[in-house]
Structures are given as structure tokens and as C-alpha cells.
């Protein structure tokens, strides 16, 4: 078991890590906005329903949610509905969308009423006010907490191994059967590099929004 063999195996695992990471972000970021609007809805039953849902999703460990998505349909219908990978993606997307929704909600509610009113008295429609005035200010404010969540997501992908997805940690652990522990520690380098790139990226985006103060 040479160094290159291990590295190649870990890169094989890294593919799943990246795939879970990317799919979760692409789907959860927009879904979070929908959930945020639901929980801010003036139609109370909808808002309470969404808030209860967010409470459940944020209140149960993500690992358990992955297990539920994969096994529970099997218990109920006699056969699994989602593949291992699909159940991981479903659990991650819903979980992260709920966290994102709360960040969005906080960001949207932090914009002063005066910004909406200024748009209104200039004859703008509600959609124009949201997309032309509010959204960009929200994005600036939520970038730091979103960066936090995105970085957490990188490491949460390791939870996929509870349904036997061979992501990077599982790939390393497979070597433990041969008595090799160091590949497990070696994975830290991959995570650090991944998070390092993201940190630089988010720093760059934040800088782009630095041209004004709100």
C-alpha cells in the first residue's frame, strides 16, 4: 500500500465529497429562499407549517436524516425508493435549505423598511423593489454566515458514509482494515485545501461588495 495508491483511492473518495457538496449547494441555495419566503408569509398557517418543518429538520441530526431517507421508505413500501446516493442528496439538500432559509430570513428582515418605502414612493413594483434594491443588500449581509455554512457542508459530506457512500473518509477507513491508520489523518490535508480555496473565494466575493457601506 504505497503513498500513491492511497492518494488515488482518496481522490476517488474526494469525487463523491465534491459531488455531494456541489449538488447540495446548487439545490439548497434556491430552495432555502423559497422556504424563507414561506416562513415570512403573512398567511399564518403556511408560516407556522414551514417554521415547524424547519424546527424538525434543524432539530434532528443530519446523520439520522440520511439514514431515514434511505431506510424508512424501505420499511414502509418493502423496497427503497431512493438509491444510496440520492437519499444522501435529498437529506443534505433539505437540511441545508432549512439552515440557509434562516440566514436569508435574517438578512431580508435586517433591511430597513425605509428601503422598501423609498422604492414604493418612486412607483416601483414589489418585484422590482426586491430584485433591484433589496436583494443585493441582503447578499452583502449574508455572505459571512453563508460562507460558514458552506464550509461546514464540506465536512458534513463525511456523514454520507452511514449509507456506505465511499467518500473520502470512508475511502481512508477502508485502509484501516489492512492496519493502516495514516490515510485517515491524510484526509485532513484534502479538507484543509478544499476549505482554504473556499475561504479565499468568499473573501474575494466579500471584497467585491466592499465598495459601499450599508
Amino acid at each position, binding site marked *: 500500500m504505497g503513498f500513491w495508491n492511497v492518494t488515488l483511492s482518496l481522490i476517488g473518495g474526494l469525487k463523491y465529497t465534491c459531488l455531494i457538496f456541489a449538488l447540495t449547494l446548487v439545490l439548497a441555495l434556491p430552495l432555502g429562499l423559497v422556504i424563507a419566503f414561506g416562513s415570512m408569509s403573512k398567511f399564518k398557517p403556511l408560516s407556522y407549517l414551514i417554521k415547524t418543518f424547519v424546527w424538525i429538520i434543524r432539530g434532528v441530526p443530519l446523520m439520522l436524516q440520511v439514514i431515514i431517507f434511505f431506510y424508512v421508505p424501505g420499511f414502509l413500501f418493502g423496497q427503497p425508493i431512493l438509491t444510496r446516493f440520492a437519499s444522501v442528496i435529498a437529506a443534505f439538500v433539505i437540511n441545508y435549505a432549512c439552515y440557509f432559509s434562516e440566514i436569508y430570513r435574517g438578512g431580508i428582515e435586517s433591511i430597513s423598511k425605509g428601503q422598501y418605502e423609498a422604492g414604493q414612493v418612486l412607483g416601483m413594483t*414589489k418585484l422590482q423593489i426586491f430584485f433591484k434594491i433589496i436583494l443585493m443588500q441582503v447578499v452583502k449581509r449574508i455572505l459571512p454566515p453563508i460562507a460558514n455554512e458552506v464550509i461546514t457542508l464540506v465536512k458534513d459530506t463525511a456523514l454520507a458514509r452511514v449509507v456506505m457512500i465511499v467518500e473520502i473518509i470512508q475511502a481512508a477507513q477502508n485502509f484501516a482494515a489492512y492496519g493502516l491508520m495514516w490515510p485517515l489523518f491524510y484526509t485532513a490535508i484534502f479538507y484543509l485545501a478544499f476549505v482554504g480555496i473556499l475561504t479565499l473565494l468568499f473573501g474575494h466575493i466579500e471584497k467585491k461588495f466592499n465598495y*459601499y457601506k450599508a
Partner: protein
Amino acid sequence: MSVLNVNNIKKNFGKVEVLKGISFSLEKGEVISIIGSSGSGKTTLLRCLNFLETPDKGTITVDGKVIFDADNKKKMSDAEIRENRLNFGLVFQSFNLFPQYTVLKNLTLARELMEKNKKDGLSKQQITDEALELLERVGLADKKDSYPCQLSGGQQQRVAIARALSMKPAILCFDEPTSALDPELTGEVLKVIKELKESNTTMIIVTHEMGFAKNVSDKVIFMADGIIEEVGTPEEVFDNPKSEKTKHFFSKSFENI
């Protein structure tokens, strides 16, 4: 004919009666100041005119056209409300400029969105030229590419005035335009308002600047507890107030000086 007729406007917030039947009219080119202590309903009245609040009772007529009738309000669509509120411009106490846009874009944003939906709307260039002209009027043409955070409070408020003018309102409303400003910055904003009066802009000014109100207004309204307690020329209201409440308000306003 009056450009604005406000008739018996009433507004409650829960059980609190904020406006208890306000009626007044405004001629073209006239300037009305609304004075009175905090909580007398001045700001709520302005917000009703700008459709930021919906009155519970009463009518608002602009140029002979009823733009609001409390007994008939269900018929108004969002588009009609938007069209009607453009009769009024509003300058806020806290400016409310859009921080992510340059001064120029603050003036052109809403106008561009509106003209885009018209068949033969103005071109972007025409809108920009008009905006630059307005910035010239408030003395900030050189700041067109600055962001609001780079301006002083007085400059921000002057931009806000230009922005309100960019939609060509028939009546320009000010909600305590200098209350958030240092005394030394107040002057530059008041000067702009005065120049607007000289070019016959019709204005309603809610203010605590008594000297300015006396100086610039054709008519002064003193509000107390949700009603118009006294109305008249500045000389009548300031120098010979008839109502006890008005007298009391002035004695309080000046007793610390």
C-alpha cells in the same frame, strides 16, 4: 382649482386615533408647512398622501381627480396605486438612498424601470441627462459617481430631493427633512428647498424648523392630537395664534432659547 384637496382623512392604528378628520387644500406652486409636536399625526398624514398608509376614511383629490376614496378602496389595483402615488414625491427624514448604487443611479433607477414599460418611453440617455440636470440644481453634479456612504448627511438629503424630483411629482412632500442632520448641514438642505419654492414647486413640508417654516411657507398648518388646530398664513399662525394649543406649543418651543 386646487391641485390637492384632502377631505376628512381619518386613520387609526389599532384603537389609537392618529388622524381624526383632516381637511385642507393646496394651490399650485404653494408651499404648506405642517408643524406640531411629536405624535400629533403630521408624519402619518404625509404617509397617507403617499399611500404608505391607507386612511380609514376620507378622500384625496389631485387636479380634480379622486385618487383615493376610503369608501371605494377595494377597486384600486396595485398598478393604480402606483400611478396615483406618483402624484406625490416623498423625501424621508432618514434619506433612504439606495446604498449599493451611485448617486446618478439612485436618480435613474426607478425612472428607467418605468419608461421601459412604456411604448415610447424616454431613452436611457434622456433619463440620464434629466438626472444630471437635477443634480446640477441641488449642487451635486460633481458627485454623480459617488456612493451615498461617501456623502455627508446634507449631501445625501439633497440627492434624495433630486431623486424625488426625478419622477416629476405634482406635489413634493418632506418628512422632517433636516431632523437627522447637524445644524451646520441643515442650511444647505433648506437652501435647496427654498430654491424649489422660487421655481414654483408645490410642496408640503413637515418640519420642526420654525424659522424656516415661517420663512418659506405660504400657509402653515398646526396639528395637535390628530386634528388641524390652526391654519393660516405664517404671520397669522406664528405671530397671532388664536388657539390655546398653538400658543402653548410656541411658548414651549421658544422657552428654552
